[in-house]
């Protein structure tokens, strides 16, 4: 094949994937490393890439300490209860204590943040959310990243990390290919900050056919954060903690502003309140510590999102669906009606398109809600990702190995979806994590930790061969058949993705089985996964675009395999409403009040699982919620 090999050498900080996490990293790295070489490798175009490509109508993580609203520990407690206790509180506290400074920078850069004119503070949607006109959120932060970076390589699909050959378990850069030219790109770097994305489209989506791209998380979020790091042997945590979203049916339009700001609420198909009747049995399952509606009502402690999903799922299964969002009251106010529509246009245009297509006017009709297929990610309200070190002033010994947000691979850092145990970071928190990782990476280099890295031509050539293999497979075998996509020697990326999604759905607790699995199903699933893994060696790509899809599929596969192992390891039902282990239908704090940590041996592909202790912040009781909280 005639593709050139293009080597970018002597990089200090390589940012792989420049969504909100990666742009935060590239931006901040310049401050701490004014003479360092900072390079971004991005699969799309950084002006519209990552989960925020479309824009956002709210920033969901802002403390507002400056306005006397919340302290970081309040946010930690909120994320803790929402995730049924399973969070990294050192990392969360650290993110929360810096996130306001990130948001204040954004405002200075021109991001329109709405104000509460009476108080002078930002307009709150809920206790943690502030409202923005964020159509251009991504291009604005990308401008800042571009000014900091020495070079931005758009349209590079990074497939693998490079590893140092002089010291074991140390990163040395990354490789990939340009999805336009097809050229092979080698980035030799002292550190890598992985800002790649979480995983949509690994579980079979509810949408079919042409609509398969209508997923809640962006279809280009291909689990590459996990695929890259797992393949290199980084430890992962909480990969079983997939998330299921209760959203407007089919369009998956957001519900946060509707619930919190517009004061809409849900009812079943017969106009009845349904949630509270499922809570007594659910309380038996998870314990009073996690579900106590009376305490929640009195203290405003939130009811964990998964448990609210549980009520929706059960009500629908009991034959009283669909669940409706009651919008007809709020939408009589023209101002609130406008906000309801702006909210979609700002971040999920497809929902506006759907309502226009189906003549759903929420002023006269209460739209349907549904629970989505599961997603695996680490920046929204769930905490999948790499097992990372915390900062030295906060972290207990088990959570600390020298550099903030460094994975268990030396010199490999994470931000956003890549970092495990830090849910509720959202856009602003992900950017903040990138900043933290960048400062730590500069320090790692200044401490001399990246000296003497060696990458052989053999490693570079081996990866090159692997990357283009799907093109070669197609070239060799496609002419064996007359025409069409059926070939006994290979599968194409779409066929592989369909197989993966069906397997995840049926064996790992997708929507098609009402989010139910058990040890038997998981073990069968793992066996089938290993055969799919063999077949993925034979995935074929007819052109460079399909080669991109082939590598996205491989990253999704590695992510999924990890989800299977983690789900099997945690022998309890920790998050009813996200998934159920039918063989252990109870939350078990005695044995499973721990974080799950895995490692895939890069040489053998074997998984080892371990439990890591959970640490919680204690002290200072939570203050009464501020007035802004509805």
């Amino acid at each position: 094949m005639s593709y050139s090999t293009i080597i970018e050498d002597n990089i200090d900080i390589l940012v792989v994937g420049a969504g909100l996490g990666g742009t935060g990293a590239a931006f901040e790295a310049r401050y701490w490393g004014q003479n360092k070489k900072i390079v971004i490798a991005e699969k799309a175009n950084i002006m519209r890439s990552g989960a925020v490509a479309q824009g956002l109508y709210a920033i969901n993580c802002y403390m507002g300490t400056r306005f006397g609203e919340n302290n970081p520990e309040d946010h930690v407690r909120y994320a803790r209860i929402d995730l049924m206790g399973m969070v990294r509180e050192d990392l969360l506290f650290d993110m929360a204590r810096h996130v306001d400074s990130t948001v204040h920078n954004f405002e200075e850069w021109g991001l329109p943040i709405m104000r509460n004119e009476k108080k002078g503070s930002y307009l709150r949607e809920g206790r943690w959310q502030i409202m923005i006109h964020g159509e251009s959120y991504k291009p604005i932060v990308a401008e800042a990243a571009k000014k900091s970076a020495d070079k931005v390589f758009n349209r590079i699909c990074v497939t693998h990390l490079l590893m140092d050959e002089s010291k074991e378990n140390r990163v040395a850069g990354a490789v990939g290919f340009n999805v336009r030219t097809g050229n092979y790109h080698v980035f030799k770097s002292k550190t890598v900050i992985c800002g790649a994305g979480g995983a949509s489209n690994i579980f079979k989506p509810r949408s079919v056919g042409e609509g398969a791209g209508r997923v809640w998380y962006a279809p280009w979020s291909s689990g590459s954060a996990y695929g890259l790091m797992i393949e290199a042997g980084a430890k992962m945590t909480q990969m079983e903690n997939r998330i299921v979203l209760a959203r407007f049916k089919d369009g998956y339009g957001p519900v946060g502003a509707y619930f919190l700001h517009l004061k809409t609420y849900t009812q079943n198909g017969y106009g009845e309140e349904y949630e509270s009747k499922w809570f007594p049995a659910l309380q038996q399952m998870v314990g009073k510590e996690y579900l106590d509606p009376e305490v929640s009502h009195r203290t405003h402690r939130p009811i964990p999102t998964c448990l609210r999903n549980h009520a929706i799922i059960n009500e629908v299964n009991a034959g009283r669906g669909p669940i409706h969002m009651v919008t007809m009251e709020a939408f009589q106010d023209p101002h609130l009606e406008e906000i309801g529509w702006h909210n979609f246009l700002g971040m999920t245009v497809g929902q506006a398109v759907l309502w226009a297509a189906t003549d759903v006017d929420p002023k006269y009709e209460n739209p349907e809600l549904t629970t989505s297929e599961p997603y695996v990610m680490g920046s929204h309200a769930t905490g999948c990702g790499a097992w990372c070190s915390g900062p030295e002033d906060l972290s207990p010994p088990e959570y600390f190995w020298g550099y903030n947000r460094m994975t268990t691979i030396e010199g490999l850092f994470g931000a956003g979806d890549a970092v495990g145990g830090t849910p509720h970071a959202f856009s602003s928190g992900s950017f903040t994590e990138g900043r933290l990782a960048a400062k730590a990476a500069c320090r790692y280099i200044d401490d001399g930790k990246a000296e003497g890295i060696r990458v052989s031509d053999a490693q570079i050539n081996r990866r090159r061969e692997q990357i283009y293999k799907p093109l070669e497979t197609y070239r060799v075998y496609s002419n064996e058949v007359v025409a069409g996509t059926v070939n006994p020697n290979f599968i194409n990326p779409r066929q592989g993705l369909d197989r993966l999604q069906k397997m995840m759905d049926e064996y790992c607790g997708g929507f098609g089985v009402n989010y139910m699995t058990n040890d038997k199903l998981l073990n069968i699933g793992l066996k089938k996964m290993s055969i799919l893994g063999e077949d993925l060696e034979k995935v074929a790509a007819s052109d460079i675009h399909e080669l991109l899809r082939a590598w996205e599929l491989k990253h999704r596969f590695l992510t999924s395999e990890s989800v299977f192992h983690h789900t099997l390891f945690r022998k309890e039902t920790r998050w009813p409403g996200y998934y159920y282990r039918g063989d252990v239908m109870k939350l078990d704090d005695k044995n499973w009040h721990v974080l799950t940590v895995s490692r895939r041996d890069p040489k053998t592909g074997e998984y080892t699982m371990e439990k890591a202790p959970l640490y919680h912040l204690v002290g200072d009781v939570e203050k009464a919620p501020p007035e802004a909280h509805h």
Partner: protein
Amino acid sequence: MPTFVYMTRCDGCGECVDICPSDIMHIDKKLRRAYNIEPSMCWECYSCVKACPHQAIDVRGYADFAPLGHSVRVIRDEEKGTIAWRIKFRNGKKDMELLAPITTKPWGSATPKLADVPAPSKEMRDSQLLFNEPKYIRMDDGGLHTLQSNGLEIKEGVQY
């Protein structure tokens, strides 16, 4: 709602190809105009619609659940700093125009160039502070929160 491109408006400039986050807007080699090569990987994010200088790209709701006959159009203007939407229902009963700001500053003018700001001191490097901190945390003199400052401990075990 995958995108499609009107034959008579597209001039093949490639702005949509350049911006599409999903790599699905490509130029048809024979017609020398753009089209959506993989509708099932379209997120209806409108990045291409907004980027098209000729309003040649539109969206038709996903065939598996969206009936025909609706329209959601947009014009994004960096110079004016606004985005203008028009939503038309299938039954013609609703026709809305919505306008929102996209920035408060002249486009691209307000992001800092960190290579030009004074380098951080050693004290700053040894601290937990980031760029513009501690000032930007509270926009006043308050410092960075620590376990000690907030009266906290981090403790192993089952806590709620």
